[in-house]
């Protein structure tokens, strides 16, 4: 039964979407910013891993620690320089500046790496197949993908609920004014959130790059996937993002099952339906509430 196959593979794909979307959801929940350059930053992670692999000859997995750490720093700096100023300037400005960033990143990547698709090698994990039943086969790489996504989300969850910094983040996301008044340095909170967002995005970007090829125009595509996962799962909720990612992944693979060309479209349609249903149920437009729930 190839439908089961599709659903299972869709779930695995959903894991990466969830990982990609987590950062977007986090930044929105805390700062009410939708970082339009989110997908592009994930893509930078993939290209950085590519460069690492080219220069060191090590596997793509070895690239993960340095690239993700580097992108944590990038996210932190991005917040302290551009995004912080954008936040202060008003509601529209972060959209405009992050869109500008998206355009710049795409242009620079195209110049440095050319428009030709690249990919990262998942190694033996990607080529091995495990035959589960007669018609269902999966690869250890996919299991790793989903496992890493769930692990990272779980760690984030613990961070939010059990650590001081996590508490500060949740408080700041609910009421930044009052957070400052009880001694929380909201700028530091935002910077940490941005670091986490960009770092996890880069991690997701690397997994994307191992799963399929990428090129400079992939940034917007990844942004849209992340956004759709977030909306389907509910803005600001981490576990909701996991659900959203999985629903999106399954929708896409089932769509592709019908016709390979329907992959993206199936995801878009599910997104629209969920959007309209939510709009009909919830009062207040989507994108207007703030707060991070674990």
């Amino acid at each position, binding site marked *: 039964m190839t439908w089961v196959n599709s659903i299972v593979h869709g779930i695995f794909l959903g894991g990466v979407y969830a990982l990609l979307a987590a950062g977007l959801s986090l930044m929105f929940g805390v700062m009410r910013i939708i970082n339009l350059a989110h997908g592009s930053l994930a893509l930078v992670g993939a290209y950085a891993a590519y460069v690492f692999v080219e220069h060191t000859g090590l596997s793509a997995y070895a690239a993960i620690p340095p690239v993700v750490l580097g992108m944590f720093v990038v996210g932190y700096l991005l917040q302290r320089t551009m995004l912080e100023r954008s936040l202060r300037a008003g509601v529209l400005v972060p959209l405009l500046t992050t869109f500008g960033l998206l*355009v710049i990143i795409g242009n620079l990547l195209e110049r440095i790496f050319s428009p030709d698709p690249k990919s990262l090698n998942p190694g033996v994990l990607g080529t091995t197949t495990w035959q589960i039943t007669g018609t269902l086969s999966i690869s250890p790489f996919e299991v790793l993908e989903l496992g890493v996504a769930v692990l990272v989300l779980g760690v984030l969850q613990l961070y939010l609920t059990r650590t001081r910094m996590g508490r500060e983040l949740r408080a700041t996301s609910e009421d930044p004014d009052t957070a400052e008044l009880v001694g929380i340095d909201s700028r530091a909170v935002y910077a940490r959130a941005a670091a986490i967002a960009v770092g996890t995005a880069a991690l997701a970007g690397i997994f994307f790059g191992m799963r399929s090829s990428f090129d400079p125009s992939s940034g917007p595509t990844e942004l849209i996937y992340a956004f759709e996962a977030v909306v389907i799962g509910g803005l600001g909720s981490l576990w909701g993002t996991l659900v959203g990612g999985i629903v999106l992944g399954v929708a896409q693979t089932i769509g592709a099952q019908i016709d390979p060309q329907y992959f993206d479209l199936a995801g878009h349609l599910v997104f629209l339906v969920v959007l309209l249903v939510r709009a009909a149920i919830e009062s207040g437009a989507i994108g207007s509430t703030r707060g991070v729930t674990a």
Partner: protein
Amino acid sequence: MSSATGTGSVPVRRARVQRWNPLSLGFCCALVGLVVALAFVPVVMSENAMQKLTTLYILVIMAAMWNALAGYGGLVSVGQQAFIGIAAYGAIFLGHQHTVEPFLAMLLAALIAGVIAIPVGLIVLNLRGGAFAIGTWVIAEIFAILVAFDSKLGAGTGISFLELNFFTPRHLLEYTYWSALGSTAVLLLILFILLRTRLGASLQAIRDDEGAAASVGTRVMLGKGILFVLAGLGCGAAGALTLANQLFIQPDSIFSVNYSALMIFMVLVGGIGTFEGPIIGAIVLFVIQNEVGDHWWYYTLLGSVAIAFALFLPRGLWGTVVDRYNVRLLPVGYRLRLLGGPALAKSEEPEPAAD
């Protein structure tokens, strides 16, 4: 009114609401004269000039429409390319497959784009802020995908509007030029009138404080909806004209988010929320495009300049001039003239990001 005394209140003077002043009246007359003069360009100037000006007019339309959404409606759209593409392909559909006269097909296609903006608007106007932005982008992607499925529309490789070749090259250029000039003038006029009506004032209220506006009876969704449909219509016109200008289109480029990048650049640089700003931004982009459009770093330049303006010069070039010199050329707002004193401009265009 008598003045109230108390703990340091300001004495109140009599005032009169003023919409037109000599400067704006003169400017508007000059504008009409300019449009008439421009209509004679094909007679006196070269074909190259015509083509370039046509491109400029298309940019002006796109900038004005994006500004209508963002500057007056507070709606940052990153998906207006949807309507550019819809109209372009619509023109081909009507003119190529159904043998409608090409320029009529283009007009109808633009109108169709405006009509399609109604259901699209009903969907995306449920979103706010960044969600709205990406939502419009998803819509654009959907249309691009749907078009690419249709082999009769050239699928992914693209299609030419061959019927345009029935005109002589010279005539095609001329008709395209006049269509572009006419569309620009009409769309700007519609926008101008809209802003001068009650809708204009209510849009400003919505932009400043939606909740407060709704509480005094402003029909928020209606205002935004009208803007969205107008922008759909306008971007549709831009799309149809682009088709006429370049004859060949393909989904990847006509539905490209690059158009949004251009629109954002023009409006940020020119002056968001002002009427004159987008026009100035279009001129700036036009010049830059001509000079460095072929260099690889063109979009990096546009993105960087846009970011710089958003952060450091948020009122744009024209907005800064307005603030500094208290000039207003087109009377889309109200000025409060204190009798017996200098005119105080009621700020009609606060920062686009009023919290």
